């Protein structure tokens, strides 16, 4: 689980920072005019990074669930499944 957290959070962080640096380089953060195409690209990069970060807790619960299933720890796997379902329901219904 720690390896998955490291991998995904490093990926998300890299995307977000790349987007921020692009924004900064092209003047948005400094308040100067900026080309729209570049602005959209950097915003999309940052939003994608934020999206990757946002799914990370769910992925961690899924990893835990698969681990408990493989270890035949039925009660813990079931609890993890309930949490995943709650998470999915919250995302669909709006928190």
């Amino acid at each position, binding site marked *: 689980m*720690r390896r998955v*957290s490291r991998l995904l959070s490093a990926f998300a962080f890299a995307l*977000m920072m790349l987007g921020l640096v692009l924004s900064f380089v092209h003047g948005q953060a400094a308040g100067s005019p900026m080309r729209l195409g570049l602005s959209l690209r*950097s915003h999309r990069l940052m939003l994608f990074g934020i999206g990757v970060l946002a799914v*990370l*807790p769910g992925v961690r619960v899924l990893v*835990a669930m698969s681990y408990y299933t493989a270890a035949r720890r039925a009660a813990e796997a079931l*609890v993890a499944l309930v949490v995943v379902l709650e*998470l999915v329901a919250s995302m669909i219904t709006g928190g």
Partner: protein
Amino acid sequence: MTLLLGLFASGLAAGTLGALLGLGGGIFLVPVLTLVFDLPVRVAVGTSLVCVIATSAGVASLASEEGGADVPLALRLEIATAAGAVIGGLVGGFVPARILSYVFAAVVFGSAAYTLYKAAGPGEAMYRRDYTPRRWSLGYGVASLAGMVSGLLGVGGGFIKVPAMYAIMGVPLGVATATSNFMVGITAAASVFVYLGRGDVRPVVTVAAAAGVFLGAAAGTLLQGRLKVAWLRWALVLLMVAIGVQMLARGF
């Protein structure tokens, strides 16, 4: 540039506190983003939710094997928290804000007093794996209450979960903070997509704050192994008293 540095510094403080005390940092970030940076509340909450997940991810990535979360405990309590959050969300529309502030303050002061009451001797270990969580029914009750407060007031509830796990269920303080960090990440993930969908997450603001949070969480995780339980417990109690006073002031 100054704005970005300010956001980064706020994130750094929130991430360090979050990693040290098992909080998401929302209770600190939302007031700072609204009062200091003059952001609309919705944008502040959206930014704060992403930062809570960043704290959780940072702690999970950097915690040592022995300092990691008790995942089965976190998952079981998270079910009670989610149920409480639904009830809190439903009830929240009918309860006056002043009453909510008093309830919130009472819960926080109660948690602080109980944490002090249960304070153990100076030899208490921050991390142990030879414990068995006890008083599950009370633990579930307080986790539901944390969820209810979360649904009512829009905070993660880590400041209730940590004292509950530590003082009521007998979980070592270091494990309780890591477990709480795991849980607040799940709670925040459940709401963050709503804010993303509504456009309440502003990328430049969020990324600047989240970068600080990542670094702060790393610093907090490294510091945690070097701190004494007594210091951490006092920091937790002082933070709870400050939050309680703030809520009482809001009620008057």
